[in-house]
């Protein structure tokens, strides 16, 4: 088990390293002066700001040296300074990570709380009205873009209930009421797509498992239907569900960017968006690296949960 985890961890670190190369080269696809020109258009900086930016990005040095210096900083938790605000990128990120993680975890929890029971119900009552309604809602959830849902939600909640998302952020452990009133609706919107996808997967995977021989055996032994489904079928049906949750997590994290923007929440997503608008490349690099790190971590969790759900996988 531990060697399995260690191997996955190593692979994750490797992927992160490649991501760092990718985003490092991304900013340097254009010749250095083109970057500075964009910087110029965005904020009309003085020549000394330009010189500082050039030095900041190390554009006057050879590529490998640039990468080594940047990576050396990253390894020590120093992502450089924002080209615009001059504040350290790491510090900016730290202030905002908590909110984005709250959103991601909450939206995942909401999605699974909706998806798993409905998915089980749809599989158990296959081809009944409940099944059709569940499946239709799922396809709908796949097709309504999050930015539209969020836009409509924020407007009508404001018109009908006078609800506006509170501005400052409070973690759930210090002020649960305020935190939930701030994040519950955005999280539900982000989770809609994951709910739809994992509900469909729960249904089809459970249908597949329910016709296995060991389910017939369990029934033949006289187990109650509830015990057969929850005790025998469900855990085995979970592996494909965990797979799609892992795959969809990347989409979910992308959703936080858009929803943070619409609900004016100060998370990493809105930091990235502001940076993209200002072409603040050091901040863009830092934010992309953060998102990649989270995804690599979640993929690791997914791999570990496979081994827990199905012990056969550990020995491969």
């Amino acid at each position, binding site marked *: 088990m531990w060697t399995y985890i260690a191997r996955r961890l190593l692979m994750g670190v490797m992927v992160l390293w490649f991501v760092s190369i990718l985003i490092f080269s991304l*900013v340097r696809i254009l010749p250095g002066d083109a970057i500075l020109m964009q910087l110029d258009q965005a904020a009309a900086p003085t020549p000394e700001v330009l010189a500082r930016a050039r030095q900041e990005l190390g554009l006057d040095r050879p590529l490998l040296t640039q990468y080594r210096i940047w990576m050396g900083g990253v390894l020590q938790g120093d992502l450089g300074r924002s080209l615009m605000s001059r504040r350290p990128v790491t510090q900016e990120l730290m202030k905002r990570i908590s909110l984005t993680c709250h959103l991601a975890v909450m939206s995942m929890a909401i999605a699974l709380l909706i998806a798993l029971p409905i998915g089980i119900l749809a599989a158990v009552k296959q081809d009944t009205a409940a099944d059709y309604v569940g499946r239709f809602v799922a396809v709908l959830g796949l097709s309504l873009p999050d930015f539209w849902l969020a836009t409509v939600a924020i407007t009508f909640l404001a018109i009908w209930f006078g609800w506006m998302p509170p501005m400052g952020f409070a973690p759930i452990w210090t002020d649960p009421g305020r935190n939930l009133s701030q994040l519950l609706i955005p999280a539900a919107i982000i989770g809609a797509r994951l709910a739809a996808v994992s509900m469909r997967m729960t249904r089809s995977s459970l249908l597949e498992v329910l016709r296995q021989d060991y389910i017939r055996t369990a029934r033949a032994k006289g187990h109650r239907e509830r015990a057969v489904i929850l005790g025998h079928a469900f855990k085995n049906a979970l592996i494909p569900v965990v797979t799609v949750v892992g795959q969809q997590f990347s989409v979910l994290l*992308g959703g936080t960017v858009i929803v943070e923007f619409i609900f004016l929440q100060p998370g990493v997503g809105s930091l990235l968006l502001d940076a993209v608008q200002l072409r603040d490349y050091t901040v863009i690099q830092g934010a*992309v690296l953060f998102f990649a790190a989270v995804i690599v971590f979640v*993929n690791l969790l997914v791999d570990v949960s496979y081994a827990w759900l199905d012990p056969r996988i550990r020995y491969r």
Partner: protein
Amino acid sequence: MPGSIPGSATADSRERVEAGTRVVATAASAGTRRTAWTRFVTLVRRKPLGALSAVILCGVVVVAILAQVVAPYDPYQFNLDHRGLPVRLQAPNATFLLGTDALGRDVLSRLVYGARVSLLVGFASVLAGTLLGTVLGLASGYCEGGVDSVLQRGVDTVMAVPGIVLALAVMSVLGQSLVNVIVVIAIVIAPGASRVVRGAVLAVKQNTFVDAAYAAGAAPWRIVLCHILPNVFAPILVIATVWLGNAIVIEAALSFLGLGTPPPTPTWGGMLGGEGRRNLETAPYLAIFPGLAISIVVLAFNMLGDALRDLLDPRLRTR
């Protein structure tokens, strides 16, 4: 009704397997003589929702192509009333069927022209993305070994960044333009597509006809292009259809955030994000109609994708 579960589940699985073999059998017996029309009739009979989606999408394509004829007004024109003032924020009425925006432009006409951008970006980026993904997947699946490892680590890398985040980062470097939007979405699509193609290639390679071709002395490129590629076409078509919906959503999201196709070109995402968001409380229809347009088209692509997957490739059903 607990008693009915095992029966129905088995019946369902048997039906699936039979449906799968039937498709393969009819495709094999009719060979290449099956016309597009008979295929469509099969689709209508077996998957009415999928067929309905296909009809809706064809309608949208026709409207987009004939935008000049269909649109009642010029989408860029600031319409004026009899006093010479712009008809701002008109609710839907007989003259302006879906109302006007804050600059007096006709919403229906802008929606019709917006369909052009959405579909153009959708088709072009999916074509480019799946093409790139197919080349990578064929190379990765056929060569295996070192080539495979290198390509797949590259794929891992790109897939470790959320699509919209990658798109935003690349757009910030490339700058805003229609072509760049297409390039960016193609980059987002390609890794996932290459995974699917690679998996299909690995499966197809096990067949004896590949060994036979090799024994007959066929060159590797010939084996890949003439023997393997036609057999992985079904999964490619299925993911392309699903990705068309996703590509349209990404395009709309970029335009919504003001980082897609630059204004004044009408785009659905741009209408929703710019005009729509600013005037939501006074004129909610400005946001509702573009949102509906995106949702209907994406819904249609998703349902068509589901139908195609069930008909063409039962193995992909669980994805």
